[in-house]
């Protein structure tokens, strides 16, 4: 399978505005992230809040400008595109957002929201617009009768479906899903995940799936990237692969099984997540790592280029 | 911490003050008419005029005039009033106390009464009281000041004879002006207090305070009030300039001196130095108000203290 997406050494540095009294502080929200995503695959990105997952998604879609690195989409170097070219390209790479509640303009009817992609791209759909909209709504499991509703009249799960319909309107090949179910109830989350699975097989979509829920990622994805404070610390080639980075291990142990018979002994409390503004030298996980050594404190481990299962650790398990 | 913060805010005011001073300086040149004309004897010659122009330094370039002016201002040297023929500083010194007393009292009145009303209406959620408050607040923003002043005079001075109609004599002469200015302020402060308290009551931490077993009174005074104070302080601080200069109407009706009246009068007579000095004083008050507001907020709210420093 050819790669639909190739991300190389992507970085983003945020700088807080300094003033006469305060030094400008900067942080790496995303630091040297590289991976490939083959057509038709689903890659999952997990990590704790603030580790840079959403920033990564925005960088890939070039919604924000990276500080370094490269993104190739279907062979095109995205960063070399002019704004106008970029706008056209967007039709092929879409995103579903974490918060369905604010993902639709409150003044737009669902029909108008779903038709907006065509308007924006200047594309005339094959069918009449109303039919096209109805078709899209049906595709995501919504009653086309809802077309005249406003967002505030429908539930969160339904809003998320509208968000997906909008993203799919222009037949993209890549869909970036940024925690699409995080703000939904479990029963609704299951609906949406089911829908995404169906769409993937029906439309041959490629997904970049972002989540903080390891079990969900394991359920949904083919490969998994584990991020910690802006870096990819481990790239699991498949969901069954055993964790080799201590952080991934911690993450897995913190995830409970939905089965009272499989209770586990939770490891005792460990240190705090360091502030991204002043990371310790060396490995960022060092303060919470049981295996930390002097080397870990001085040298940042690189993501091993070892084929298949890459890990950024001096002492992988 | 607070000192440092205050100092930083002060430094930040420098560029702002500079731009304001330029604006003020320019406003005066936008005014039609010429104070020299007011000053010239009728039928006097061009030389007389040139002489006066030179005497007041109006013949130099605007930039030079500006720097001379701002330099003088810095030394507290407000110059000589052209029409009123006395040091501007004297005029300010004469009028400012009136503005400060009136403004201060109105300020005190509207903040205390307003906060009390707002608090009561926020905690006693009674439909009748609610309607009364709404009506009162509405009235406060509805009735033009001069109109209210007239009605107050009619009632308290003419019919009841409790307070003098006008003037700046003893405390009695302050009552009606303070009431007039304070009325709108009371409504404003009451509204802000009420909203802020109701907002604060909805915060999660309040639930937890109740869950700790604290009494409603303790929660109100120890925890909710500080939160309600924040916006009230902001509003009040912003109104310092307002109260000093915005009392013109009231000063006019009650025949009181004050910064506002002085400004209006000087404006009418095109007395540049006085206009400039008055505007500068007001701008200073406004900036001081913002500063006080910011510092007060920062001293009450650790989050602000940190974010802004």
């Amino acid at each position, binding site marked *: 399978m050819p790669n639909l997406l190739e991300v190389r050494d992507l970085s983003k540095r945020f700088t807080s505005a300094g003033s006469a009294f305060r030094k400008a502080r900067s942080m790496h929200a995303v630091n040297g992230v590289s991976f490939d995503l083959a057509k038709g695959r689903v890659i999952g990105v997990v990590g704790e809040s603030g580790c840079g997952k959403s920033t990564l998604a*925005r960088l890939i879609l070039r*919604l924000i400008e990276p500080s370094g690195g490269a993104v190739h989409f279907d062979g095109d170097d995205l960063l070399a595109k002019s704004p106008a070219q970029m*706008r*056209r*390209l*967007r*039709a092929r790479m*879409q*995103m579903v*957002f*974490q918060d369905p509640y*604010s*993902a*639709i*303009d*409150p*003044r737009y009817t669902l029909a108008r929201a779903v038709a*907006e*992609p065509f308007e*924006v*791209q200047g594309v005339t759909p094959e069918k009449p617009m109303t039919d096209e909209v109805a078709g899209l709504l049906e595709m995501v499991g919504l009653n086309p009768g809802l077309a005249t509703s*406003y967002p505030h009249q429908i539930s969160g799960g339904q809003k998320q479906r509208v968000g997906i319909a*909008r993203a799919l309107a222009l037949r993209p090949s890549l869909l970036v899903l940024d925690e699409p179910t995080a703000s939904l109830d479990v029963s609704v989350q299951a609906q949406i995940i089911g829908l995404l699975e169906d769409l993937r097989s029906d439309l041959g979509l490629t997904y970049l799936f972002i989540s903080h829920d390891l079990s969900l990622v394991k359920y949904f994805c083919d490969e998994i990237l584990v991020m910690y404070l802006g870096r990819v610390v481990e790239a699991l080639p498949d969901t069954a692969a055993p964790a080799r980075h201590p952080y991934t291990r911690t993450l897995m142990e913190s995830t409970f099984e939905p089965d009272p018979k499989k209770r586990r002994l939770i490891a005792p409390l460990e240190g705090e997540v360091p502030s991204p503004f002043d990371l310790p030298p060396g490995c960022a996980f060092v303060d919470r790592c049981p295996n930390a050594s002097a080397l870990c404190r001085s040298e940042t481990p690189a993501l091993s280029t070892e084929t298949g299962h890459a890990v950024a650790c001096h002492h992988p398990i | 911490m607070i000192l440092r913060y205050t100092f930083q805010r002060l430094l930040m005011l420098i560029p*702002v003050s500079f*731009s*304001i001073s330029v604006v003020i300086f320019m*406003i005066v040149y*936008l*005014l*039609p008419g010429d104070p020299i004309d007011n000053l010239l004897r009728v039928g006097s010659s061009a030389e007389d005029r040139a002489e006066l122009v030179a005497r007041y330094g109006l013949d130099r370039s605007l930039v030079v005039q500006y720097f001379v002016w701002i330099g003088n201002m810095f030394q507290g040297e407000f110059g000589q009033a052209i029409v009123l023929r006395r040091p501007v500083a004297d005029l300010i010194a004469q009028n400012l106390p009136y503005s400060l007393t009136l403004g201060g009292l109105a300020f005190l009145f509207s903040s205390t009464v307003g906060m009390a009303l707002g608090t009561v209406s926020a905690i006693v959620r009674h439909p009748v009281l609610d309607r009364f408050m709404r009506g009162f607040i*509405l*009235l406060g*923003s*509805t*009735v*033009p000041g*001069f*109109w209210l002043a*007239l009605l107050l*005079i*009619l009632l308290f001075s003419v019919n009841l004879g409790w307070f003098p109609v006008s003037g700046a004599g003893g405390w009695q002469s302050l009552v009606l002006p303070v009431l007039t200015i304070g009325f709108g302020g009371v409504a404003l402060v009451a509204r802000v207090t009420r*909203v802020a308290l109701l907002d604060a009551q909805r915060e999660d931490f309040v639930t937890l305070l109740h869950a700790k077993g604290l009494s409603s009174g303790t929660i109100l005074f120890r925890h909710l009030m500080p939160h309600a104070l924040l916006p009230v302080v902001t509003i009040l601080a*912003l109104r310092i*300039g*307002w109260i000093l*200069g*915005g009392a*013109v*109407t009231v000063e*006019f009706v009650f025949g009181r001196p004050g910064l*506002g009246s002085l*400004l*209006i009068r000087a*404006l*009418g007579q095109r007395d540049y130095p006085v206009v400039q000095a008055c505007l500068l004083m*007001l*701008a200073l008050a*406004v900036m001081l*108000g*913002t500063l006080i507001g910011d510092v007060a907020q920062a001293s009450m709210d650790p989050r602000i203290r940190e974010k802004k420093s």
Partner: protein
Amino acid sequence: MAIRSLDAFARMSIGRALSSGIGMVAGGFLILLVLVAVFAPLIAPFDYADQNLMNANAAPGWPHVLGTDEFGRDVLSRVIYGARTSLSVSATAIAISMAAGMTLGAAAGYFGGFFERAVMTVVDLTWSFPDILIALIFVAIIGPGLTSTTFAIAIAYLAQFTRLTRAQIVRLKRETFIEATINLGAKPSHILLKHLMPNAMAPVIVVGMLAIGDGIVLEATLGFFGLGAQPPTPSWGAMMSSGTAQLFLSPWVIIFPGVAVAITVIAVNLFGDELIRSLDIRDRLRGA
């Protein structure tokens, strides 16, 4: 822009505002008032400028229902025509102020950075300065009359609209749907005109509505200083400023326009409150 913005959403809200009891009464009164102002020549029983010195200061009665003033002019007719002046001055001023404030605020909010800081500093200053002083300075610069009153009121309220619009834009810019629309490949103009502005508008329009009330009061105050409408054009403010002595001689000359101002402003406020409630934008008004 204001008319176009009356989309289905806004119509719904106005409908909802009108459907509450208070909202209906207040809204009905305002509509009536506008009609009176527009059709003043048809409604007013007399010419507002016709003097009849022999019948000056006549008490309310017949044919002068609200009495006559010191020139024997019909007070009712003057109050009716005064609605015209007061409403149109205030509404025009607020419209100008709103247009300018929205442009400035949107630009400041959208572009941010130094431009934003510069705009906001200036605008904040005009805000914390007493509005009556701003008005008086303005009148001093361009001279008395309705034009200058209009501009003075417009300037006095500029800050409010600028701040509000900016706050809305800044808030909206962070909303997911904006990012989503950018991600669809939308141009900045599309974002600004189709999403940001329409969404920012609702609270600005409501505040504008409320400001019309304040504008009427400010017009009245300027009238009190003799700086508003020039005689014999009636304006409520000018009529109210006839002085205390008039309260003894012919109180109706002062009382009726005063009552007109009070009722109108109260109606504007009540209706505005109702709109705020039905648009559910109370929180959005607070931030600014």
